[in-house]
């Protein structure tokens, strides 16, 4: 098909604003999926994605559409991840398109993440087509939100499409707008072939599959290919399009999107954002915008049952097959035994990985408090990366500690401004700007990433009754007065509970931490002092008093078996506890420390 009849586009939308439903409708209307095969949200293939209503992996689907002008067009819909953790992937998806549908819930309006992605699209010179979805909802306010969306992209409110992906109303108009307004690709067919990798997956039978947008030239099955950033050479064992299942075509030409089967076994070898060219006739320059994805958030994952360690390793290996941004290495803790220190793109990524490990691999895990990567300058002038509190050198050897800062953009209705600003101030935020956007305020703060990774997002939501939305980007490292806060149980430091905190917060955190542990550690046969300390200095202390009564009230001939079984059940319950030195610590105690970020007033 000539490039004039190709349209490459994606959908920008906030979680729950209807991106997946709209994608489903498009597949249905163009006959790519029959009514019978129609599963809701075809593009979100992972169970977890379906359940959480979010998209983790981007994919490209090709459909054919016969427009009002009588011509048949090839439409390539590139799905984009919908969360801040995956913003780099979003930027690569956008780079593969000429246009974007900006889908906004007509009852809720624009959210921070949508805003960020829209700016990305505009910067990337994409044609942005505004769409108000869910106009069938009673709470829909298409006038207000339509005006705001038009303002955002500098368009006429008249041009904002009004649809309901749920009922199917207005979908044709969306496809017509894609055909009319999104420019066709303008690659050079005769130039050396170049393609952008905007996503990749691991397929059990085919190995690593790259999703690509061909910019120039033509790729054929059997071509020897080179990844221009990594230098890796692979062969295109198969080449084709998603329609919406993998359909071999033998070649992909400039302007088209599709997939390449590479034969690689390790997903990490193929980098999203890299440029592919032919070894035989290489392109001179790689496509712009490539960067290496680095994990931002780290935590230790330990099996509750030490016997599950090999299973945890296997599970992490399997997850890594399809998640190149997940990093992990063995770690051992005095308190928790053997486990792994894992690196994630962000909090959602961490949650998803943990949930998949527990759900899909049936593992019970203990996670340490998440932390960021610190840069420590020693008194000898060395600069050390520190990803775990236990890696921190002794205080006397530290000249300076730096931590990553992010610029947070928060959109909130005006009555929530006070609560948001208080929260940001409490979390060491530095105010940058505030300006109104439609009927809301956009508040910008620079904040330590460490403050975000605890439970900032949950707190933001709970303090604004769910109305605030958040986006953030890394703005670099800044020096902070940070200290290592230790927890001692019965006099022994529990390495897994140590955390790096700001000096000004150490006392409050320590006190709260001790209180939480005090509430969750059950009474034992002896007194258990719980202390929080910096170096040798005790900041807070509580004592779990020894048990004073623990007997089975009655035991006669008729219930000896029952009592023995009761003891067996109690024993089963004790198995869920970790023996830390001489103290039995329940999983909830570790979890309660994880939630230390909130102010203790409950959520």
């Amino acid at each position, binding site marked *: 098909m000539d490039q004039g009849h190709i349209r490459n586009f994606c959908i920008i939308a906030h979680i729950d604003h209807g991106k997946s439903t709209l994608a489903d409708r498009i597949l249905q209307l163009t006959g790519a999926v029959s009514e019978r095969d129609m599963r809701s949200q075809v593009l979100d293939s992972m169970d977890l994605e379906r359940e959480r209503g979010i998209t983790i992996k981007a994919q490209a689907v090709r459909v054919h559409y016969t427009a009002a002008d009588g011509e048949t067009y090839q439409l390539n819909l590139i799905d984009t991840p919908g969360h801040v953790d995956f913003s780099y992937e979003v930027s690569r998806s956008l780079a593969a398109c000429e246009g974007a549908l900006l889908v906004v819930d007509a009852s809720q309006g624009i959210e921070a993440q949508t805003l960020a992605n829209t700016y990305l699209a505009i910067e990337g010179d994409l044609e942005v087509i505004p769409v108000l979805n869910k106009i069938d909802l009673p709470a829909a306010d298409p006038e207000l939100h339509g005006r705001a969306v038009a303002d955002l992209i500098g368009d006429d409110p008249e041009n904002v499409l009004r649809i309901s992906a749920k009922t199917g109303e207005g979908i044709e108009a969306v496809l017509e707008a894609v055909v009319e307004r999104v420019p066709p690709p303008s690659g050079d067919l005769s130039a050396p072939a170049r393609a952008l990798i905007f996503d990749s997956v691991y397929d059990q039978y085919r190995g690593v599959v790259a999703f690509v947008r061909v910019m120039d030239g033509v790729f054929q099955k059997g071509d020897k290919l080179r990844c221009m950033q990594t230098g890796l050479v692979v062969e295109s064992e198969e080449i084709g399009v998603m329609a919406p299942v993998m359909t071999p075509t033998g070649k992909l030409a400039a302007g088209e999107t599709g997939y390449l089967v590479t034969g690689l076994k390790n997903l990490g070898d193929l980098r999203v954002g890299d440029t592919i060219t032919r070894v035989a006739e290489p392109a001179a320059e790689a496509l712009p915008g490539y960067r290496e994805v680095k994990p931002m958030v780290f935590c230790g994952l330990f099996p509750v049952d030490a016997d599950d360690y090999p299973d945890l390793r296997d599970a992490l290996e399997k997850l890594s097959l399809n998640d190149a941004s997940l990093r992990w290495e063995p770690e051992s803790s005095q308190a928790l035994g053997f486990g792994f220190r894992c690196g994630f793109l962000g909090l959602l990524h961490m949650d998803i990985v943990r949930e998949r490990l527990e759900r899909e691999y049936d593992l019970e895990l203990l996670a340490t408090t998440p932390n960021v990567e610190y840069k420590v300058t020693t008194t000898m002038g060395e600069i050390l990366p520190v990803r775990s509190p236990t890696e921190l050198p002794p205080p006397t050897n530290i000249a300076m500690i730096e931590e990553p800062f992010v610029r947070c953009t928060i959109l909130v209705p005006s009555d929530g401004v006070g609560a948001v600003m208080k929260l940001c101030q409490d979390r060491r935020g530095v105010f940058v700007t505030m300006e109104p956007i439609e009927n809301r305020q956009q508040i910008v703060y620079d904040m330590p990433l460490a403050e975000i990774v605890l439970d900032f997002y949950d707190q933001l939501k709970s303090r604004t009754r769910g109305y605030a939305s958040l986006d953030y980007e890394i703005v670099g490292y800044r020096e902070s007065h940070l200290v290592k806060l230790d927890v001692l149980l019965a006099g022994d430091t529990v390495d897994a509970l140590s955390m790096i905190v700001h000096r000004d917060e150490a006392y409050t955190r320590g006190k709260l931490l001790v209180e939480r542990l005090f509430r969750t550690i059950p*009474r*034992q*046969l*002896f007194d258990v002092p719980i202390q929080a300390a910096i170096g040798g200095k005790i900041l807070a202390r509580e004592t779990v008093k020894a*048990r*004073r*009564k*623990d*007997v*089975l*009230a*009655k*035991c*006669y*001939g*008729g*219930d*000896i*078996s029952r*009592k*023995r079984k009761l*003891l*067996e059940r*109690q*024993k089963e319950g*004790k198995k869920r506890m970790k023996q830390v030195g001489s103290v039995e610590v329940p999983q909830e105690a570790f979890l309660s420390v994880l939630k230390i970020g909130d102010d203790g007033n409950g959520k």
Partner: protein
Amino acid sequence: MSPVAHLYLHLPFCSSRCGYCAFVVNVGALGRRDEYLDALLAELEREREAGRIGALQTVYLGGGTPTLMRPRRLAALMDRIRPHLAPGAEVSMEANPESVDGPALAALRRAGVNRLSLGVQSFQPHLLAALDRAATPAQARQLMTCARAAGFEDLSIDLIFGIPGQSAVDLERDLAEVLAAGPDHVSWYELELKPGTALARAGTPAFDEDEGADAYRRIVGGLEDAGYRWYETANFARPGHECRHSLAYWSAADYLGLGVGAVSTVGGERWRNAAALEGYLAALAEGQAPPRSREPLDADDVRRERWMLGLRLERGLPLVWAGPPDRPDALASLSAAGLLRHDADEVALTREGRFVQNAILHELMDYA
């Protein structure tokens, strides 16, 4: 199979079910009492024929409300048991204050019952109401007097603490009543909110550990001061008045239980008669064994039960009998913590250890 020396007879009839009760009882089936007696005697006869009944050191008639069987039936039952009794055998029966009177007690005494366990539970009307107990405190006091008059020299009363609404003052009053009544033996349990009971369903809050501990320690102290020995976790006796039948359980001796829901443990095997009255009556009427479920006990079960039971007793347990603990190292640390005493032959909990017997058990043994 060797004959047993301890016999339990279950008499399940009750006029109503109490709010805390999870026993096998039959309410509203009083018309079946004659049939039940026949069935029970038939089961006794089967066991006799099987050679399982030896010279009985102890017999225990429990319920239910055994006194609802009335002296006539109980006497008939005792007539069949008497030939098996060893000299000086203990024959205990449970009695509820509202279901028995002086003449009935005298008849039971004549029939050979020589130990009476009175289900008082509390002397405070509002606490009796909380437990759905029908008797009044006055009836309980009256019964004590009648029992003595009828010639019972082994008199025990059952009490409960941790009843919803029970204050420290209520507890002091119960303690004072008990001491004034002067029984030979006292069983004083913390209320267990067993699943399925009316109290558990009502979402009754249990005592927290400290409230329970305060009450428990007060009871132990109060009774000890008055000359009772705290010979088992929840049982107290004047010297020589310990319940020998219960001691057989706590010593993991073999015992035979007859009647609906009754449990027997003989020669490393345990079985339980099914709880349904109809099935029990029908099987025995047809000359069959009652429906039973069986539970074999392996060497580890036996050893862990001996530890579980033996540590309930003040006297402790002989290691040669109980076998080694699963975690022998714990003996030293528990001993250092002042919770137990041990030498090469014997392990016994200290007074402080006895209050946390269950936790100690978990330190020593792996119940798996």
